[in-house]
């Protein structure tokens, strides 16, 4: 079967893990890995895995985009350079999946709103953050049942799974995730907290989701909606698991619904504790696959974005 050819930008944890995910996809094929350091371990690994590589950044990729028929690119660099990367590739008709907190395109959580982004043929979609991918489906599952005035999520990540980019830019992570809890999750106000835990052996990614519902929660409907949503996420992240809850409490702030999740990864690049890495790359891969399926079926056509 024909596959859509992809480029990966950024050869850190996320970019490397993406190679594994894309190689397994029935509709995607990883072709290029873009880095900035010729001696980097990530580029060497990509070469070993059969990808073409450049250490010249996105500019090193541009001359090959048309010849190699690259149609989808994944950007796992940083919020600061993403906009420029996206502009250059969009001009060549390449659709961009943004795994940085830049969020210049619409925010995407596959089981919540991927369908509508594909229908609109968005040329840039943003994957928010690992914490966003792990928690927003649950916020949305509650918000589908009744209105949520406030949602707060706490992501616990093992120290070994958090790369230098995320560490140095925690504020961007916080802002992007909080905003997406509102825009995609459906809460009127969102707040995101991140904790990096150095325990050995590393702790598996944990996420807690608190929602305050406006009215007294309809417990059985919320439980049903949450379990259904977990099933949807498990389609692309099998290790997405409910540990405790939903549990309902009356607190001074109102009616609280609490859900305690765990995310085990597939152990592709980092071991299974790094569910945070997996849920991000798996969501990005799922997103690319939906676009790829539509392109291959002739339902949508990517169009070059005219330079402004």
């Amino acid at each position, binding site marked *: 079967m024909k596959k859509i050819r992809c480029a990966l930008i950024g050869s850190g944890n996320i970019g490397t893990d993406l190679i594994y995910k894309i190689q397994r996809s029935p509709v995607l094929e990883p072709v290029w890995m873009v880095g900035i350091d010729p001696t980097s371990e990530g580029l060497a690994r990509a070469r070993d895995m059969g990808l073409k590589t450049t250490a010249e950044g996105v500019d090193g990729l541009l001359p090959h985009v048309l010849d190699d028929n690259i149609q989808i690119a994944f950007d796992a660099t940083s919020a600061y350079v993403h906009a420029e990367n996206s502009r250059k590739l969009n001009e060549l008709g390449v659709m961009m999946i943004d795994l940085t907190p830049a969020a210049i395109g619409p925010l995407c959580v596959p089981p919540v709103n991927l369908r509508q982004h594909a229908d609109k043929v968005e040329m840039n979609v943003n994957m928010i953050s690992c914490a966003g991918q792990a928690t927003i489906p649950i916020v949305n599952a509650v918000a589908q049942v009744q209105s949520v005035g406030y949602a707060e999520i706490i992501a616990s990540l093992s120290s070994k799974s958090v790369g230098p980019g995320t560490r140095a830019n925690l504020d961007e992570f916080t802002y992007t995730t909080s905003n997406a809890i509102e825009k995609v999750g459906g809460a009127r106000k969102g707040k995101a907290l991140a904790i990096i835990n150095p325990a050995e052996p590393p702790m598996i990614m*944990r996420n807690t989701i608190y929602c305050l519902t406006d009215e007294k929660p309809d417990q059985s409907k919320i439980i049903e909606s949450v379990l259904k949503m977990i099933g949807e996420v498990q389609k692309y992240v099998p290790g997405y698991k409910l540990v405790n809850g939903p549990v309902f409490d009356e607190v001074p702030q109102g009616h609280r619904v609490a859900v305690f999740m765990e995310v085990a990864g597939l152990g592709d690049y980092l071991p299974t504790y790094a569910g945070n890495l997996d849920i991000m790359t798996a969501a990005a891969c799922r997103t690319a696959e939906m676009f790829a399926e539509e392109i291959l079926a002739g339902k949508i056509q990517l169009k070059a974005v005219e330079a402004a």
Partner: protein
Amino acid sequence: MSENSLKGRKVILHDMCLRDGMHAKREQISVEQMVKVATALDGAGVPYIQVTHGAGMGGNSLQHGFALASNEEYIGAVAAAVKQTRISVLLIPGLGTMRELQAAYEAGARSVHVATHCTEADTSPQHIAYCRKLGMDTTGFLMMAHLNDAKGIAAQGKLMESYGAQTVYVTDSAGYMLPEDVKARVKALRDVLKPETEIGFHGHHNMGMGIANSIAAIEAGASRIDGSVAGLGAGAGNTPLEVFLAVCDRMGIETGVDLFKLMDVAEEVIVPMMDHMVRVDRDSLTLGFAGVYSTFLLHAKRAAERFGVPARDVLVELGRKKMIGGQEDMIIDTAMTMAKQRGLLKDVA
């Protein structure tokens, strides 16, 4: 000999009643109470007081509780009331952001503890740099310092110094450390940091070691000590500041703070505010003994009550799972899992 060895040493005292004390009050200290406490501490000559939600800027949350007023309201009211005292805030990256630092500065804060877990200093460069840009007295605050060895603490402190921290703290959040542990870490920092970079120690009294540990820190080169009057703070409380001051006075350590006035603040202002006597008891001693984050105490008691599992069992399990500050949600989660194992709770599906 040790009595006189510290004679003449100058040490800066930093009171935590209006920040760490918020934990012991479930964040329910009013603006009026804050102004009263701050005015009293200012009158006694305390040079720095920390004023925020117990979890710092950005702390208002379901995870950490909601205070009676915003951090900006507290800081603004206190800053307007004090004459000589400088107001500091706590900021934990991942919880508070640079927007909140800016707001704290505008409200009147001039000093900051930028806090990370003792192995995660590299989550603080943005925030430390931003505080320096604002011109704030900037501390890098290494929490749960017993979970990293002296060499590790020195390396983490060096990172914070490289981001711009003017002081690096060894923070015994669990009240677990013994004087030799404190000395080793402070000394290791002193060996690697620039001579002008100060070292601080923040103790908790869960094992009754707050004062002894603070003295040990000074002996090893620390020049800033956190405590709170009457110990109002998380767990068995912070190093009780008036008691520590009495020891300093006897040893000839110079602080510029008036002992009798500070005793009066403890007796007349702080103790009457307490919801429970902040002291070493079964649960707070468990924190110190097991090396658990002091703030977990009241959360564990609530979760224990809700799910019918003893608080001490929950705390020991949290220690075993190596949960760190900020993971208060895992207290409820752990209590629920334990309740299921004991047949007290069922899964929803």
